[in-house]
């Protein structure tokens, strides 16, 4: 079953196209990671899915319906981001109780248990929480709501690494008990990659890649060694990133279209072949310039 479908979706703010010609579909009960650089259009896309924004053109359907101004979609979806406002005049216990009334699948005990685990007191007030604790509370709400479509936009801002890891595990465990469609936007791809089914990578408002995470691992390979040997194996279109090392050596990342024999031969000629960490790969794929920041300095 398809949960989300978008067709030539676009959203402009004045002359700026935040989301441009985006077509994709997301299957039900999968965890999809949304990545892209700052300003790539991630949040705009998520707001279009949640029905907070009206598309400038194109179409988006959630549970088969247009999300904008749609009660069915709103009732079955939760959108967690750092702009989510929570009341100042209710304590955390009361806040959770109030929110729970809006969501059919709300798990009050789970919310309480997580609150306790993350050292939040029901008597505390939201306004007095630290940044990381505010994020924790929102993440608790996002998990306990058990919405058929759960959207997290940078939910871990301000959390320390131990808390983030606990949350990833909490999300995974609850997902196994109660599968649902989850979209998770994050800059920390390496931290969340093991949770994901699929990855959606956007660049300048457009879809750049949408693939199962397994395929991302083999998407590119890194070569370190003599430039003359490496360049013979690679066509310019395959190059994703390149850096000079020493006099005639390079480190080069290329789109992986190589079979085992070619890689083996390169290895035997002294070229070192290495996997490319997913974090680095997503940087290379979304970069505007192949040389990266070094380009700025080489011009002077």
């Amino acid at each position: 079953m398809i949960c989300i479908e978008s067709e030539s979706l676009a959203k402009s703010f004045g002359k700026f196209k935040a989301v441009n010609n985006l077509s994709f579909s997301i299957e039900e009960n999968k965890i999809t990671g949304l990545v892209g650089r700052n300003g790539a259009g991630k949040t705009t896309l998520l707001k279009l899915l949640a029905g907070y924004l009206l598309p400038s053109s194109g179409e988006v359907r959630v549970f088969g319906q247009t999300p904008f101004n749609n009660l069915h979609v709103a009732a079955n979806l939760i959108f967690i981001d750092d702009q989510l406002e929570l009341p100042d005049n209710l304590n955390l216990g009361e806040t959770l109780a109030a929110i729970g009334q809006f969501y059919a699948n709300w798990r009050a005990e789970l919310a309480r248990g997580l609150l306790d685990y993350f050292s939040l007191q029901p008597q505390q007030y939201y306004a007095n929480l630290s940044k990381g604790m505010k994020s924790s509370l929102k993440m608790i709400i996002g998990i306990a709501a058990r919405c058929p479509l759960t959207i997290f936009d940078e939910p871990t801002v301000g959390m320390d690494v131990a808390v983030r890891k606990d949350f990833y595990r909490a999300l995974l465990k609850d997902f196994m008990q109660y599968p649902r469609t989850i979209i998770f936007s994050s800059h920390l791809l390496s931290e969340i990659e093991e949770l994901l089914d699929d990855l959606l990578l956007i660049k300048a408002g457009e879809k750049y890649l949408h693939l199962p995470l397994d395929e991302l691992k083999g998407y590119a390979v890194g070569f370190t060694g003599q430039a003359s040997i490496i360049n013979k194996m690679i066509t310019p279109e395959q190059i994703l990133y390149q850096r000079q090392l020493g006099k005639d050596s390079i480190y080069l990342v290329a789109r992986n279209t190589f079979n085992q024999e070619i890689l083996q031969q390169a290895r035997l000629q002294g070229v070192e072949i290495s996997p490319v960490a997913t974090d680095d790969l997503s940087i290379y794929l979304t970069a505007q310039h192949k040389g990266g920041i070094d380009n700025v300095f080489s011009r002077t």
Partner: protein
Amino acid sequence: MLLNPDSLKPIYMQIAEWLELEILRGSIASDEKIYSQYQLAEMFNINPATAAKGLSMLVEENLLYKKRGLGMFVAPQAKERIRTKRINESLQQLVLEVVAEAGRLHVPREELVRMIEMAEQSFAEGE
């Protein structure tokens, strides 16, 4: 064991290899039930679909078999077949790389054999 995020191998393959090691070490015998996709997801903190893919890889190689409603079990002779497969694939590959590196460093054959013997000794002591 923790998964190696820097490996070129997708996570499901790392899971399949870990299961192979478990069978090879004898911790799960033939016709014994192997971990379910949810147990693996819990253990390694991974998406259950990824874990399922690792399991089905071993089913395709006939190292595991399914029993309807009961789960997956280790095939007879799985241990021996994994051993043969690993010799033909990973061990030969490693030997090839050792020989290539020895060639680049101009290490003569006798010296290389001597090094292997020494390695065997320290391995035996470590056991």
